[in-house]
């Protein structure tokens, strides 16, 4: 009688780790020893349990998952990713996830590597030096922002001049404020070859999203719409591609500011405080 797979996979943390490890690629005993930090005598009974359950086979000196093992791995991976995400930090459950579309929420485990970066209370109203420095050598940069952060303008312009691809999505109030204070710089930015500027409606459900080849950061509002200056960040390739997809989602709902006429119409209408509704698609 075979024991149930749920027990085979989840009754022991060692076996769970082993399954997730072999799901990446076949491994030798030597590699398993090092990567899981175990002795062969401690891990061999677990390997035997897997081979007895037809989840693992030994081939060319390596242990690898069978087809069945691979299916079991895929299902375990996506559950373990979400469990890791929620057990690591309460950030996600204490904030409003309404700005993340369902298909990305289904894969929120992809950003399980995120770490919380707490704001330093003494510097809350200062430019965020860490973020600025971190993103300053990016090969590409994508930003969705509900905030007016003029201190980042030099970063956008610098990367733009360095031929990095820079795409910015601002809410209409943020763009309005930028145009009010930095009209020339914004006009110049919008007309550069390798830069894109988009505008979307106010009331975004995410506070800020920054993605580059170096990493990603995201910050959200709490359920009451409050913002605490903390953010989550991660450098995993998986998290970066998740964040890029989130950026693409917002881009698909935003209007591209591609010629100066749009800026003209924006600056003229926004003086009376009303921006042409027809120009904007709903961002929700």
């Amino acid at each position: 009688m075979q024991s149930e797979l749920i027990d085979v996979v989840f009754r022991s943390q060692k076996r769970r780790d082993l399954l997730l490890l072999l799901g990446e690629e076949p491994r030798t005993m030597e590699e398993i020893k090092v990567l899981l930090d175990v002795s062969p005598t401690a891990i061999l009974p677990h390997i035997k349990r897997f081979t007895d359950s037809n989840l693992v086979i030994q081939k060319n000196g390596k242990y690898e998952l069978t087809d069945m093992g691979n299916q079991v791995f895929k299902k375990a991976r996506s559950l373990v990713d979400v469990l890791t995400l929620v057990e690591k930090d309460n950030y996600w459950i204490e904030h409003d996830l309404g700005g993340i579309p369902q298909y990305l929420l289904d894969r929120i485990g992809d950003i399980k590597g995120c770490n919380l970066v707490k704001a330093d209370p003494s510097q809350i109203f200062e430019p965020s030096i860490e973020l600025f420095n971190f993103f300053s050598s990016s090969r590409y940069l994508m930003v969705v922002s509900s905030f007016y952060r003029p201190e980042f303008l030099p970063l956008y312009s610098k990367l733009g001049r360095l031929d990095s691809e820079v795409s910015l999505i601002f809410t209409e109030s943020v763009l309005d404020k930028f145009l009010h204070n930095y009209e020339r710089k914004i006009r110049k930015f919008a007309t550069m070859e390798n830069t894109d500027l988009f505008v979307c409606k106010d009331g975004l459900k995410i506070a800020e999203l920054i993605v580059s080849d170096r990493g990603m950061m995201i910050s959200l509002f709490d359920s009451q719409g409050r913002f605490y200056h903390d953010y989550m960040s991660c450098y995993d390739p998986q998290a970066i591609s998740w964040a890029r997809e989130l950026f693409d989602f917002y881009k698909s709902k935003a209007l591209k500011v591609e010629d100066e006429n749009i800026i003209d119409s924006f600056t003229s209408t926004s003086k009376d405080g009303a921006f042409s509704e027809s120009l904007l698609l709903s961002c929700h």
Partner: protein
Amino acid sequence: MSMELQLIDTIFFSDKRKNLLLFLKNGPKTIEEIKTELEVSSSPIMAQIRILIKDGLLVQKDEGYELSVKGKLIVPKMEPLLSTFRVFDENHDYWARQNLRTLPSHLLDRIGELGKCMELVPDRTHIFDYPPEIMDPLYRSKTVMEVSSFFRPGYPGLYLDLANKGIEVSMVLEKPIYRKLVSDYRQEVGEFINMENAQIFVCDNKIELASSLVTDRFISMSMISKDGRYYNHEMVSFEKSALEWGKELFNYYRDMAEQITQV
């Protein structure tokens, strides 16, 4: 290194908690609804509810309970895992023997949708036929869709008979099988494809699966083992999700096949 993951004990190692979480996936429920669905009395289920609330997976809502934000992130991942594990557990040796890659990968990823399956192996008198257990539901079906990479002696007769009874019959066959069918039973094939409720599609590509028969009542499929061997057997499921899965399997092959309009 890896995390301990306290929640694994909470969600998996009590059937009451596991079933309750899956039940609440469909929305908030009152304690009465929970007791009826899970066939439990108040005090044992309340003990489990308290554990789930303590671990932040459940919240109280008006008169009942619902999944918390955390619960809503986790529970949707439990379901495909548990259904996959269940399909494998119930016929462990069978699935371990088969070459699972003969299934299209998007359907292999959803193998849990087959639900409760049973393997039928015909006795010697029926060794080339469908097992008698599925003949009755086959004749009660309204639509019959078959994908096959091998030749069943019953082909012209059985399928012509089904079509004559007004059942919608569609078949996707590998090219060599179709050729054999035409050379052995030209007249029957002609009769079959001239019927309004009968269709044959021919596939140039290799059909990796041995066969799959899906109707509006059941799915019955057979696979090739890892060492490339075949024995006559049918893996049968009557579950609704399995019928949907089987229809997608049929469509997958039909979409790469061409319909035959004349012999």
